C-alpha cells in the first residue's frame, strides 16, 4: 500500500468537506492535488534532509578529502561521485572545496567528479523527485547523475588539463591531514535540525509556488497539450530543455513541481530528466565563481562534457521510457 494514502484521504476530506468544492470539477482536482503534494513534499523534505545531515556530520568534506587522496584514479572518481551525493553545494562553497581538494593532492579529474555530483544529486532535488515522480524516476536520476559525474571526471583527468588551472592553485600545497573537532551526538542532532530548518526556510516559498502553478496546470491544462511541442519524437526538445535549465539553479525546488505537471501534459520523461539535471548540475553562478581558480577554457570544457552527458541521458530515456 502507498504510505502516503492517508494524505490522499486528508486532502480529499479538506477539499470536498471543509472547502466544500464540488467533486469532479477542475477546481476540486487542482485544490486536492495542491494540498496532497504540498504536505507530502514538506514531510519528505524534513525527514530526508534531517537524515542526510546526520550522515553528513560523520563525513564532512575534510574527511572526504582524506579518503580521496588515498584512492587511485578510477575508484577515486566513483567514491568522489558517491560522496558528492551527501554533500550540499552552494556556489559559495565551490572555491574552498576546489582549492582544498586540489592543493591537498586529490587529482583534478577526481575533484571534478565531486564538483559535478555534489550539486546535481542534491537532497532537495531528490525529495522533489521522490515525492512527485516516485522512487523509480528518483533512482534513475541518481544513477544517471552518478554515471555522468564519474565519466566527466575520468575524461577531464585523461585530458590532462592541469595547465588550465590558475597557476597560484598549484603553487600552494597544503596538508590535508587536519583533525577537526569531534562532535557529540547531541551536537549532530542540533546540526541536522538547524540545517533542515535552514533549507526549509530557504525553499518553502518556491515549493508552494511551484506546486501551486503545477496544480493549476494539472487541473486546467488539457492532457497532451505539450506533446506536439515536447514529446519524445521531437529531436530538439532535449537540448532546448538543457539550455533553459542552466540559469535556473537556485530555483530547483520550484522548478521540479512545475516540470512534474508538464510531464502529465505530454513532455516526455527523458526530456524532463535532462531538464532537471541541467537545472541542478549546470549552474551559471557556479561557472562565474570558478573563474577565480581556473581558465575560462576549462570551465567551457567541463560544462560541455556534463552538458553532453545530460543530453545523452535525455535521449536515452526518451527512447527507453517511451
Amino acid at each position: 500500500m502507498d504510505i502516503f494514502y492517508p494524505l490522499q484521504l486528508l486532502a480529499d476530506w479538506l477539499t470536498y468537506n471543509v472547502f466544500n468544492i464540488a467533486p469532479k470539477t477542475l477546481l476540486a482536482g487542482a485544490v486536492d492535488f495542491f494540498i496532497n503534494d504540498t504536505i507530502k513534499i514538506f514531510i519528505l523534505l524534513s525527514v530526508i534532509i534531517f537524515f542526510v545531515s546526520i550522515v553528513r556530520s560523520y563525513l564532512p568534506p575534510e574527511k572526504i578529502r582524506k579518503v580521496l587522496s588515498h584512492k587511485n584514479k578510477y575508484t577515486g572518481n566513483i567514491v568522489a561521485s558517491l560522496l558528492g551525493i551527501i554533500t550540499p553545494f552552494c556556489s559559495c562553497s565551490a572555491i574552498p572545496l576546489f582549492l582544498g581538494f586540489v592543493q591537498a593532492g586529490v587529482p583534478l579529474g577526481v575533484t571534478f567528479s565531486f564538483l559535478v555530483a555534489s550539486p546535481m544529486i542534491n537532497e532537495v532535488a531528490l525529495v522533489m523527485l521522490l515525492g512527485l515522480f516516485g522512487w523509480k524516476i528518483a533512482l534513475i536520476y541518481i544513477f544517471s547523475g552518478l554515471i555522468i559525474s564519474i565519466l566527466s571526471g575520468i575524461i577531464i583527468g585523461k585530458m590532462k588539463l592541469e595547465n588550465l588551472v590558475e597557476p597560484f592553485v598549484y603553487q600552494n600545497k597544503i596538508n590535508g591531514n587536519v583533525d577537526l573537532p569531534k562532535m557529540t551526538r547531541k551536537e549532530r542532532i542540533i546540526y541536522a535540525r538547524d540545517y533542515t530548518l535552514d533549507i526549509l526556510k530557504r525553499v518553502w516559498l518556491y515549493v508552494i509556488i511551484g506546486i501551486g502553478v503545477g496544480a493549476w496546470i494539472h487541473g486546467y491544462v488539457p492532457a497532451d497539450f505539450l506533446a506536439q511541442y515536447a514529446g519524445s519524437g521531437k529531436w530538439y526538445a532535449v537540448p532546448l530543455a538543457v539550455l533553459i535549465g542552466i540559469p535556473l539553479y537556485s530555483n530547483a525546488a520550484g522548478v521540479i513541481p512545475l516540470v512534474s505537471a508538464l510531464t502529465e501534459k505530454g513532455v516526455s520523461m527523458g526530456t524532463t530528466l535532462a531538464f532537471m539535471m541541467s537545472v541542478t548540475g549546470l549552474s551559471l553562478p557556479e561557472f562565474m565563481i570558478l573563474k577565480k581558480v581556473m581558465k575560462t577554457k576549462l570551465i567551457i570544457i567541463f560544462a560541455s562534457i556534463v552538458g553532453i552527458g545530460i543530453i545523452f541521458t535525455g535521449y536515452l530515456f526518451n527512447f527507453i521510457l517511451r
Partner: protein
Amino acid sequence: MIIQVLGSGCPTCKKLFELTKQAVGELGLETDVEYITDIQEIVKMGVMSTPVLAIDGKPVIAGSLPDIKKIKETIKEAIK
C-alpha cells in the same frame, strides 16, 4: 592567544564573528577577534567548511554556527 573567525563573507560567517566578539567581551579577555575572508588562508588551515572559529591557528569549530554558550565553552577550553 589569537582568536580568528574565517569565512567567505557569507551571512553565517559574519554572525559567528559577531557572536565570538560578544563571547570574548563577556569572558573579559584582552584579545581581539580577527575576521579573515581570504579563502586561501581558510584552505591552508586545512578546512573547507565555513564558518570556522580558530584559536591559535587551530580550527575548533568548523562548518556550523554554534550558540554563544558553546563559543564561550570552546574558548575557555582552549585557554586551559
